């Protein structure tokens, strides 16, 4: 049953440690959310998406769709502010992305961070109201593995930054976009009941 694994190492080959590092993140979720998704190596399940380096680039290429370009650009820009890696100092940010590649980001509570400029954006289903639009970043720093690569907000490496067409997965079934939440908080009561027992201020998990 285990003969296949019996030759060679019994442990994971190489872990991408950087992907699991948390120190530079302003919130624990920023690596995970809104990253561009790709299908797991199923070529039949991918389709082309276009890359533009600026709003002008999109409108020049697709003059009939200037308005859609604008909306996709704004969506990507908003996404970039939310999901780009954030650094405490300009030097740290420039070390990763190159000089003059970083801008100040201020969150609602007034804290300042440095994040890379959006270097491009990727669009699919441009004509659909729920078009797919995501920011791309690149690095000019010789210290960075991202140098001259298209990098998604989730850290995914799309390859050489001269590419203008990228393969992304076809849309998986999306649940309905319009949901009216009629009730909230209907899970978790067992925990509240059981928490009254035992440790005072805090507790460990409900896993086992």
């Amino acid at each position: 049953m285990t003969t296949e694994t019996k030759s060679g190492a019994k442990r994971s080959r190489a872990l991408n440690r950087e992907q699991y590092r948390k120190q530079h993140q302003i919130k624990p979720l920023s690596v995970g959310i809104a990253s561009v998704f790709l299908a797991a190596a199923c070529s039949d399940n991918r389709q082309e998406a276009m890359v533009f380096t600026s709003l002008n680039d999109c409108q020049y290429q697709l003059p009939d769709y200037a308005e859609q370009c604008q909306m996709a650009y704004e969506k990507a820009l908003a996404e970039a502010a939310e999901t780009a890696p954030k650094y405490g100092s300009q030097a740290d940010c420039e070390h990763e992305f190159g000089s003059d590649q970083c801008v100040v980001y201020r969150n609602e509570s007034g804290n300042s961070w440095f994040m890379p400029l959006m270097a491009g954006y990727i669009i699919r289903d441009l004509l659909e109201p729920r078009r797919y639009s995501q920011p791309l970043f690149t690095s000019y720093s010789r210290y960075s593995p991202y140098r001259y690569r298209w990098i998604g907000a989730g850290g995914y490496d799309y390859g050489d930054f001269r590419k203008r067409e990228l393969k992304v997965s076809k849309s998986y079934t999306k649940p309905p976009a319009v949901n009216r939440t009629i009730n909230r908080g209907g899970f978790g009561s067992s925990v509240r009941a059981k928490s009254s027992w035992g440790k005072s201020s805090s507790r460990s998990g409900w896993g086992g």
Partner: protein
Amino acid sequence: MIRIPTQERPHWRKQADEYGFRFHTMYGQAYWDETAYYQFTLQQIEQQIEDPSAELHQMCLQAVDLVVSDEYWLNKFQIPEAFWQSTADAWRDQTPSLYSRLDLVFHKDKPVKLLENNADTPTSLYESGFWQWLWLEDMVNSGKISKSADQFNSLQEKLIAQLQVIQHWYKADTLHFACCQDTEEDRGTVQYLQDCASAGNINNRFLFIEDIGLADTGYFTDLEDNAIALLFKLYPWEFMMQEEFGSAIIESPTQWIEPMWKAILSNKALLPLLWKMFPNHPNLLPAWFEEDLASASESKLVKKPLFSREGANISVLENGEVQHSVDGPYGEEGFIYQSWYPLPKFGDNHTLIGSWLVDDQPAGISIREDIQPITQDLSRYLPHIIL
């Protein structure tokens, strides 16, 4: 299997900060403990742990197959009647599972014994898949452990791959992850799985169990009113089924990791059922339901609630008298009894092996140690090597 005292890496607490490993110390006590490690031979790992784990897991799946189609057993397992059909459907559709952890007792040159199956909400995943892997790399690089040392730990590789399989199976655009509020350990475990999802290029979002909403479309929703297509919940099925939203699960298009049939495997009623199905199997301990207890010839028994986690409400009985007991909030759902089988002792420490499975394949081990004979949620976690 030997226990080897060693020096802590001087930088490990700083490294833990960098990687966001926040629960290495809980309630002022060490949880991650690298003042020692356990060393196994490859033969011990493969023949005494890996192969029996695969076999035990298959036996457990046979038990699920029996229970879902039999009212007698569904009652025995206290699955609420409203969920019988959904549980059976989830099993017949072969809805994929992510992971589980078998707790095993390992004595040198003896068959391992199954204590229980944590099949629904197992934790200590980050420590196993990532943190002890980093520890070994550091120890080898600093020359403290031989370069030829290995570790039984392909968890992270397998988790990334299986999350992709599950996403593809449900064709889900985004994978939501949830655990309860106010628990750093559970949040850390879920964050690790989110990082694994990101490594597999899977869109993912987090929300707390308490924040889940229910929409007019039947979907459960996140705080932005996005429908949840697929939810990883680090929250027990037996709780969810009883709660206010429980009845909405049955008709909801929202899908779940772990799948609903895991409610059968994480239930302690599994232990006496396995003993009935596979009597005298070398990797099983004799176990009984309350009404069969008269047929138990053992004088020393462990009494476990059907739904208990991390050692809570377990007591050890000798000739009917309580020897040890652990407090806790469980037990109103009933108990099962298992033959007492001591954990191996290394100095003052009692040692338990957690054997992980991902996608039905053995994927590594974790080791917990405790001064007490029953390991609990505060038992220390120690790394291991194969040499």
